[in-house]
């Protein structure tokens, strides 16, 4: 018996629907079809009238979720791909994210973004949008990297009284398996030490945690001990856990699958540089995707984003500094 990352997301939604009558799911093809990735498989049948197909109207999908939240509901919105959240961007950052601050009325909506690259998905079905949303006040942004987190963090997202952008990684949907669903959960706002090591800290999130862990394994055979920090949630960012790790290792590499300008890796380095500069024994490094749209062909795609090999290469150089 094992459960995939995708099944964990489905199970979390089933539990949220079962336990809270205020929860409903709204998105394209999420009803009897079960969603483009089957993240809502059978939920329309199990919860009649609470899993609704939407027209291809991301703006109106999010806008309606805000209206329903004002009336006390807790909608879960599925964007078919994270890339398609851009037509709904206005409603997310200007309507959902400002509501509480302007009116003191909370806006408890969860927006699921099937994120990140898979081979052959190309420029418009591969994007990692987390930094864009994290830039705006009034949003929480989660980036789970494990089956357990996909489950428990999604349940926490639904329970939070604020809009949560839930970035679930499509590559992990089928590749990642666990024996069972978790019965205990770390709070979403805490980062996790995914692997202990004393020579260099690699901070990663989402699918890059697994590339970082593979790089750590590679460097282990060369005698370098890598500590891997899984951010889990990028906003709020658990700076304390990152700085505590850098205090142990003195070296920092941040890895993200998103584009290089600005973003999560830049934010982590900025915070470590301003709050923990004296802990660094070498300049902090960062590794991101290339500064081009995401390519279609598998050969190009594999070279576009960070991999265990490219991470290991940067980390190897970093420990020599």
């Amino acid at each position: 018996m094992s459960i995939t990352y995708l099944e964990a997301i489905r199970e979390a939604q089933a539990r949220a629907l079962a336990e809270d009558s205020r929860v409903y799911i709204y998105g394209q093809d999420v009803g009897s079809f079960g969603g483009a990735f089957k993240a809502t498989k059978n939920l329309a049948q199990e919860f009649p009238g609470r899993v609704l197909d939407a027209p291809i109207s991301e703006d109106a999908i999010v806008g309606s979720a805000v209206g329903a939240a004002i009336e006390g509901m807790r909608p879960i919105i599925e964007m078919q791909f994270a890339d398609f959240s851009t037509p709904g961007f206005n409603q997310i950052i200007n309507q959902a994210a400002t509501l509480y601050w302007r009116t003191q009325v909370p806006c408890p909506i969860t927006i699921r973004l099937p994120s990140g690259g898979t081979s052959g998905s190309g420029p418009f079905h591969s994007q990692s949008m987390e930094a864009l949303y994290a830039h705006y006040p009034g949003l929480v942004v989660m980036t789970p990297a494990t089956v357990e987190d996909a489950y428990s963090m999604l349940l926490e997202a639904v329970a939070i009284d604020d809009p949560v952008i839930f970035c679930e990684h499509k590559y992990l949907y089928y590749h990642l398996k666990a024996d069972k669903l978790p019965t205990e959960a770390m709070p979403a706002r805490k980062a996790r030490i995914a692997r202990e090591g004393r020579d260099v800290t690699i901070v990663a999130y989402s699918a890059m945690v697994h590339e970082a862990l593979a790089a750590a394994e590679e460097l282990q055979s060369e005698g370098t001990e890598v500590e891997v920090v899984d951010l889990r949630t990028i906003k709020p960012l658990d700076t304390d856990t990152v700085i505590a790790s850098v205090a142990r290792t003195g070296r920092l590499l941040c890895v993200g699958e998103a584009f290089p300008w600005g973003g999560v890796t830049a934010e982590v380095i900025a915070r470590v540089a301003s709050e923990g500069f004296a802990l660094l024994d070498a300049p902090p490094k960062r590794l991101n995707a290339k500064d081009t749209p995401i390519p279609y062909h598998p050969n190009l795609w594999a070279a576009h984003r960070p991999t265990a090999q490219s991470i290991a290469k940067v980390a190897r150089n970093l420990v020599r500094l």
Partner: protein
Amino acid sequence: MNRPAAAEVNPKREEFVKAYKLMVLARTLDEKLGSLYRAGKIPGGGVYLGKGQEAVSVALGLALRKGDVFAPLIRDGAGRLAFGETVVEALRTCLGSSLGPMRGRDGNVHRGRPRDGYLPMISHLGAMISVVNGALMAKRFKGVSGVVGGTCLGEGASSTGAFHEALNQAAVEKLPLVVVLTDNQYAYSTPNWKQFACASLVERAEGYGIAGQPVDGTDLMGCLKIIGNAVQNARTGQGPQLVVAKLLRLCGHGEHDDAAYVDPKLKQSPMGRDCLAVAEQIMSKENWAFPANFRTWKEESAHQVDEAVNQVQKEPPPDPFREDWRGLASKHLAEGYE
């Protein structure tokens, strides 16, 4: 698509006079805001008035009731008062009192009380329609029936993707939504011929598969009837309703705008009539009220607005040192920047 109304709304003296008095109050408040703007007494500086659009706006505000949802736009002072906002509440947001519902965090026309079904607009046009849709979907989830969501916008907003998505969404979900679209000939400075190419925006209704009605926006009687019917039709399960009111905006986009671009011929046309004067003619003709009444009601409004301004101007402004500067409802998830 012009469908026959379920039950004809036929306003009598009492309702007409009530609507007219609210229009006068809204006009008086607007004129006071214009004076305060010119005197530099508006924190933040922006004033957007509804001069000429009071009849359309008040007709929707009056047709809605407690339990309904209302998302007004920038020229809906009359509708806001009709839906239950007080002059003091309006002024608190316009004058930046910390006692108002927005507490200085937002200003002028960006005000509301979402818990009471009164939604505070964002600046992005067309964006409030789907929020009303969602509130109506929530009411349906909760088993509440017989409620209506009403929203106002201008012809410029009808060019947005948000407008299209939301009207289509309401049609697909068969929601009790009433969209009152005031075609006031100019979106800021852009004339209609650069905004849309169909003969009338009411034609859009057919494309969405919803009911559509035109109305003369300068005629309070017509507005009360047509908009009242639309609200009643939505309330009785006949799906979304679009009403397109034609008139001319009798002020600039905001008080900073002298509207020199307005075609003088439009001002002389029937569209350029002042809805207040038209309403007064109707009342005189029907023997419902007379110039002496109009004067008295205007004086009462002036007194009410002056008293409210005096009160609100003495209220404390927001204090940056007492702000919590927290954008999230969840305290434990705040970033805590220094």
